[in-house]
């Protein structure tokens, strides 16, 4: 029972309510980094990783602030703690695994102000998820973000071979593609419903 609920939560966060295609979250990197497949997949991984870190931070902060009866400081606490934790993790990764840092490093500072990250923290708090649910939700959101980014990068690599009118080059064509992808993802709706 518990397992099916967690699975439904994961599917829901990754596909049905995909952060990029259903909530418009993380559009900035979506438009910026989706030009090439390898950078897109690395960005996706980096975001998924930071989402998990942020989710854990937010879980602890929320418990702490509720205990202190200061829930109204949540937003400011989330953003500060998440940003500093990411910086800390960045330093660790640089020391421990230079290869990984090379792969993810340049994106990490950018990601801190990515709306998708803060959204994970805010949504999980608002919906009152428990610890396990938070982890699953963050993983699902990350997987969904990566999927959207990689799909888009694949399409845009193909698109380079086609003749796109000058006027539509760049943002406009990407948005149109995103619209089509978003409609396609609508087809996943209903999967999360337990029968």
């Amino acid at each position, binding site marked *: 029972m518990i397992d099916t609920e967690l699975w439904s939560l994961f599917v*829901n966060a990754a596909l*049905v309510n995909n952060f990029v295609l259903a909530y418009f979250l993380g559009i900035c990197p979506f438009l910026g980094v989706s030009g090439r497949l390898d950078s897109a997949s690395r960005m996706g991984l980096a975001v998924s990783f930071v989402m998990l870190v942020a989710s854990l931070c937010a879980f602890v902060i929320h418990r702490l602030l509720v205990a202190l009866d200061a829930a109204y*400081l949540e937003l*400011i606490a989330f953003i500060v703690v998440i940003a500093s934790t990411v910086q800390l993790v960045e330093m660790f990764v640089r020391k421990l695994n230079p290869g990984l840092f090379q792969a993810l490093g340049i994106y990490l500072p950018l990601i801190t102000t990515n709306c998708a990250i803060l959204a994970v923290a805010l949504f999980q708090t608002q919906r009152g998820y428990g610890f396990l649910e938070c982890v699953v939700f963050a993983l699902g959101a990350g997987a969904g973000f990566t999927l959207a980014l990689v799909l888009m990068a694949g399409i845009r690599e193909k698109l380079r071979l086609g003749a796109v009118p000058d006027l539509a080059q760049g943002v406009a064509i990407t948005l149109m593609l995103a619209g089509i992808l978003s409609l396609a993802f*609508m087809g996943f*709706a*209903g999967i999360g*419903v337990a029968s």
Partner: protein
Amino acid sequence: MSATPTPAGLRSALAVQGVLVAIALVAGLVIASVHELTRPRVAAQRAALLADAVLDVLPGAVAYDGYALRADGRLERLPSPQDAALFVGRDGTGQRVGVAIAAAGMGYQDRIQLLYGVDPDAGRLLGLRVLESRETPGLGARIVDDAAFLQGFVMLQLQFDDSARVRPLRLARAGAEAGEYDGITGATVSARAVGRILSASLAEWLPRLRDPAALAGGHGDG
């Protein structure tokens, strides 16, 4: 990061941190004071919104009390109904009209949050309001404001099996019978989700509410 630990370097690093801490303190102070200033109005607005919904699903009620479930399974009356799980509505003479219960569950797109009124003794629903949903606009989203659909839950007689357990509500196929509700064309999944959420919540709450001692905490001073 790589500041040499000379006294001067340390001092400037401390100064940098000091500025940040000062900004954070001022920010916290500002937020806390605005919170104090707006709190009464926010509380009043939230209470008005809640009262509107509760009295809507309990026709005839003019006042209500909030109850929460205690650890021992008994219901306890709360001083403020804001955080309550269920609400007991009373009419002008203080008679119990019914109980309003908040319920939530998965819909087609996302979670649906409901508030429904039920008369536990007569075993029938009194009203339904969808508080929050992200169903498909124009299709599933009609569960929020489709008057005929919502009206179908008013005075809906619940069915019980031999051991007095409430039977799940069913979507009517042709002409609603007892225990059935009318769907919405094009919104079958969402309408069915509403029925499922209601059935699950009823199965959980009704046995408690039909226990005569359940609402003891509120009878004496209600």
